[in-house]
């Protein structure tokens, strides 16, 4: 029987706009890193990844089973809140796993995953409602509560036991790092110590390129994050004697900066919605990462930087100035902030060195 239905306009939808397509693309873009992690770290990487993904998926599943019990009884697998079907919880789990160091005990992975997904996502109302990057939050939770247990193994030279940033944290301007690791090693990730998945800048670029071609992430974000770090480190380099261009390279290719910029700072749910807002956010991530690395003791600044910047998202998106266009005023303010930051970092760095 033919029936005429009345709906409000528009009467068309964009064919490729689907959450599942976007999330699946992120998962696909992560695959080279997963393979590389298992290749270079062996089975332990596999267990870490399985524990990371598994703990998040199971927690979400149990959470919605319980919630549906409380509400009206029956849990349905196609419950739209249960984000397994659109890969989003898998993506969180994979990212979380890939930023963990290889010697981490499995129970720490699981506790981080469970608490991370519960505190960062579910209590906020599930998919789309979370404020913090889930993987980043889980990673920080794991790191803070089990700091002692987190440690890196260097399978090239176990005794060295230091990551590039570990070395840099003691003396940020020592080119001693280069004796152990060449820039190519850092870029390709071959034989690099560090978290299991974030060591190969090359593969991260490949993943990023894929997502860019599929329009599944906002390419401005990683560009601005990397650009900010590049400019800041170049400024510091120029202002400090005896520091060469290698400094910029080590800043860009180490410590998961690229991983964070490409996979974490682009998570649309936890970043602003406007293009200018995203650029401010990305700038903030780059700046904070650099500052944490330079002045702090915690070398993996990028995860912290992202989670800290997540807190500023509501402020960036505040109704009064949330616009998708740059105005002269916002451009001037942003330019001024950028210049002050560079000067501040350079002056600050002279005390560190």
């Amino acid at each position, binding site marked *: 029987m033919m*029936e*005429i239905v009345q709906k*409000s306009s528009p*009467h*068309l939808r964009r064919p490729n706009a689907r959450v599942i397509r*976007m999330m699946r693309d992120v998962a696909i873009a992560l695959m080279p890193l997963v393979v590389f992690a298992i290749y270079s770290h062996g089975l332990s990487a596999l267990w870490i990844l399985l524990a990371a993904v598994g703990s998040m998926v199971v927690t979400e599943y149990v959470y919605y089973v319980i919630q549906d019990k409380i509400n009206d009884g029956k849990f349905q697998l196609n419950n739209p809140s249960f984000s397994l079907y*659109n890969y989003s919880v898998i993506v969180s789990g994979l990212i979380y796993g890939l930023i963990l160091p290889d010697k981490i005990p499995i129970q720490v992975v699981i506790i981080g995953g469970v608490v991370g997904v519960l505190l960062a996502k579910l209590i906020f109302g599930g998919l789309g409602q979370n404020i913090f990057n889930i993987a980043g939050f889980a990673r920080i939770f794991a790191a803070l509560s089990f700091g002692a247990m987190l440690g890196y193994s260097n399978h090239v030279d176990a005794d060295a036991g230091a990551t590039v940033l570990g070395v840099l944290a003691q003396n940020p301007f020592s080119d001693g790092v280069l004796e152990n690791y060449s820039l190519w090693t850092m870029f390709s990730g071959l034989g690099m110590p560090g978290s299991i998945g974030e060591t190969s800048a090359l593969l991260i670029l490949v993943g990023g390129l894929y997502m860019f071609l599929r329009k599944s*992430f906002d390419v401005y974000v990683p560009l601005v994050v990397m650009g900010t770090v590049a400019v800041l480190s170049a400024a510091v380099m120029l202002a400090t004697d005896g520091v060469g261009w290698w400094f910029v390279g080590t800043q860009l290719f180490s410590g998961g900066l690229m991983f964070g910029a490409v996979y974490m700072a682009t998570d649309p749910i936890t970043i602003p919605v406007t*293009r200018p807002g995203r650029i401010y956010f990305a700038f903030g991530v780059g700046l904070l990462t650099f500052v944490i690395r330079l002045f702090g003791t915690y070398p993996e600044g990028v995860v912290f930087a992202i989670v800290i910047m997540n807190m500023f998202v509501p402020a960036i998106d505040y109704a009064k100035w*949330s616009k998708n266009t740059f105005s002269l005023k916002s451009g001037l303010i942003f330019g001024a902030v950028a210049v002050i930051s560079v000067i501040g970092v350079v002056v600050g760095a002279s005390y560190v060195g």
Partner: protein
Amino acid sequence: MISKAKRVSDYKQLTKQLPSVRYVDPEFVYLTLMNNRCTDYTLEVEEGDSVKVGEILGEKCGSFFETPVYSTVSGTVEGVVKKLDQNGLEVDCLKIRNNFKDETHESITDRPDAFIKAMSKEDIVDIVKEKALVGLGGAAFPSYIKLNTDEAIHTVVINAVECEPYLSSDYRLIMDQPEQIFKGLIYIMQTVSAPKGVIAVKKTKKALIEVLERECERYKDYDIKIAKVKDYYPQGWENATFKEAVGIKVPVGELPMKYGLLGFNVSTCASIYEAIKHNMPITKRYLTINGDAVNFPQDIRVRVGTSIRELIKLCDGYKEDINKLEVIIGGPMMGVALPSDDAIVTETTTSVLILKSTEYKEEPCVRCGSCVYSCPVDITPVSIMNAVKRNDKKSVELLEANKCIECGLCAYVCTSKIHVTDYVRKGKNLIG
């Protein structure tokens, strides 16, 4: 997908090149006696009276103005019936039986060119007002008000962009009657003393450009240019056309006249020509019937007042295997869905689309930002949606929901298939 929507894609696989236009003379026409501005009417004819094309039948009365109702056929009056108009409102219509003689009323006489040249602004405005001409692009804004502007106009822009997908009625009009458009444009330029005229068409419509450029040769004395604009949606939105065609950015919510610009849709321009040259009201128009749920989509030239149900029959009816469909007046992005097909073609009906109704599965918003990137007026639909959900009037105001032109892009692009446009509409209502 996180990106701006530039084109509205054709995934419903609608026919782009429709069979050439044909003319239909219906047995009955139904002429609307009311609209959303005029809720009352007076009649000057009774049942059984015989009428001619262009004869005044009565008047629509509104709180601001009266508009005469003209007959579009010759024949006999059969009384008042209820039909749906282009907005899906049920209105009273005068039913007239066509005698197929096409006799024109004695008031329909040509004005000599020399006479027209000597006419003043007031004369032309009066004719346009008397012939009840309105914007035929869909807005139905009375044309005489625009012509009567006091601002100094430097450029008259004729909008032939027709940016909504699947519509080709303006295209047909230009192909068939380019000289009407040029002459109409010249009359408008004369009325508002504008030195320049611009006709904006899509770059991709090669055939149209060729026709217009050849025609342009004939009017060398006038400063008329053809502006080729990019094929984006919503390029036909007046402000976008102005920006591309003449390079002037008119802020949303301000009148283009303030910036020396006056815009008319091509069909409106042609209707102004008809009114001034032949003293003829709008009696016929080009109409596109298209969609994935109709058997034989085509372009038709019809009398104003023709029943849409009859026209669909003429297109071999609805496809059989479809159980839910939408009948839409206008384009797929901004058109109005009708509650039934018992509607009539009014002078502002550009097209009838018959689309298979698709159920979209909504997911939670992932804040992808596509709606923000796509919005032509640079507001943030997702934030407006969230504010509307919280019933937060202040934020809706701060987010300038009132700027929305209801282009539909935010819902079109939404990654989560949320009807964002509806939320923005609610926001607009919220702040009144």
